[in-house]
């Protein structure tokens, strides 16, 4: 019986990158633990480090898992296996996104749990927090898509620069155009208003669209190495 090469490629990526995933979870958890100290400064520092750990993983994972395969010339080795460019791209996308979702989901759950159990953190922050937590996920998808399609460190770095400098700008635009986000931030209960659902829907659509376009472009490549 022939092996499932795509599955083997995904498992191979996991074995190669698992240290970074564990490191992200540890760093994010440590940042969240700072919130337990109480007070304004640990709160701000904890939230910033928590976000930084996610952004760090969103940047480093695509570069290590995708760009390095080409840069370090291990791509020839992988492409000597019974796999086409389209299937390689699909396996790479599944492994990279899957690996990122592990720390992202783990830290998202940890953050929500922290908000729910800590009285100093209002539950009204949950919708906005969810919207913000999607930023590194969207950024990660954009960097991953660019790295996979453009096959270049330069384009990957450019995508990282654009994405990382956009987080605060997008947040600023959202807060200034959707006042309810800011107004309900300190509410004792989470307020799931239509604008919140609309923003979450747009975020989800961007993720699906980015991954779909990446797969499509990858499947149309004629020269792979």
């Amino acid at each position: 019986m022939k092996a499932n090469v795509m599955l083997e490629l995904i498992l191979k990526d996991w074995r190669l990158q698992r240290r970074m995933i564990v490191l992200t979870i540890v760093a994010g958890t440590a940042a969240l633990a700072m919130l337990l100290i109480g007070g304004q400064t640990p709160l701000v520092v904890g939230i910033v480090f928590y976000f930084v750990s996610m952004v760090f993983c969103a940047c480093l994972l695509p570069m290590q898992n995708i760009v390095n395969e080409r840069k370090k010339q291990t791509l020839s080795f992988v492409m000597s296996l019974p796999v086409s460019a389209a299937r390689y791209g699909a396996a790479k996308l599944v492994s990279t996104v899957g690996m990122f979702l592990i720390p992202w989901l783990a830290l998202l759950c940890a953050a929500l749990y922290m908000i729910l159990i800590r009285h100093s953190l209002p539950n009204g922050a949950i919708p906005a927090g969810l919207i913000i937590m999607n930023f590194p996920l969207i950024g990660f998808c954009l960097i991953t898509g660019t790295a996979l399609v453009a096959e270049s460190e330069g384009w990957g770095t450019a995508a990282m620069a654009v994405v990382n400098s956009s987080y605060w700008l997008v947040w600023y635009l959202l807060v200034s155009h959707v006042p309810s986000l800011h107004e309900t931030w300190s509410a004792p209960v989470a307020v799931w208003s239509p604008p919140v659902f609309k923003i979450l829907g747009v975020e989800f659509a961007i993720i699906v669209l980015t991954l779909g376009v990446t797969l499509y472009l990858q499947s149309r490549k004629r020269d792979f190495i």
Partner: protein
Amino acid sequence: MTDCAIELNGVCKSYPFFDLHNIDLQLQPGTIMGLIGPNGAGKSTTIRILMGLVHQDSGEVNVLGHSMPKGQIDAKWDIGFASEDMRLYDSMTLGWHIHFMKSIYASWDDAYSQLLLKRFGLNAEQKVKGLSHGQRVKASLLLVFARRPKLLVLDEPTTGLDPVARHEILRELTAVMVEDGRSILFSSHNTQDVEQISDQITFIDRGRIIDSMDKEIYLDRWRRLRLEVPDGVALPTLPGVIGVQKAGRLAVAIANAFEPHLPNAYETSGARVRAVENMTLEEIFVANVEHSREEVKA
């Protein structure tokens, strides 16, 4: 379907600064073909096309009965491919790579891989980043050989190796051929390596196949004639002679279709034939490339 291990018919590929022109190539099962060409001749592009990694603009490519690039997944189960620019994962051990290949190929031969580890002097526990260049090449070839593929496609595998490592790899390649029906396409710009192990030789230059035939026929057909040409004697243009270089009274004629009557023809014209020499594959290669370039210019 075709009986050839590899068959390329009229394959063309255009890049902004390089074109592959109308490549026709056939590799019969059980033979070793040396694909020789200078740097930038199109060896790697040809190999990438037949591996399905680059799609041809036109022409047909069949490998082990599979049309490429469409059938590349099925074909690659039986192809062992290694190239000069191929690297393994630095942070992992050779043993990890062996385990990875075993998880994919049911044909993996454990006993043979252990034997190759010993023959190549490799340690499975060692990380790839600690290996020398020669050891890395050997490790890559071990991962290819132990799969027992029907077809081996090797793109300049001996480049940058010391003579001992080259000898070990060429010896192993010859040993691999003991198994019936296995075919090897071996690209190199090192004619010594190719001469040592190939049955068939194909010369490629500037994106064109300039010649392809049995190695023994090549060596038999090419000759160098050293001539002494007295003043007032004009050398005749003879069929089978592709070029004559003169320096004073001495001349060297290169024949690519040597016939025993050629020396007599020169003697009849008034020249003296001082020697008729066999040519090495490297000399044939250089003469062939120069002749082909002159023909293209003309």
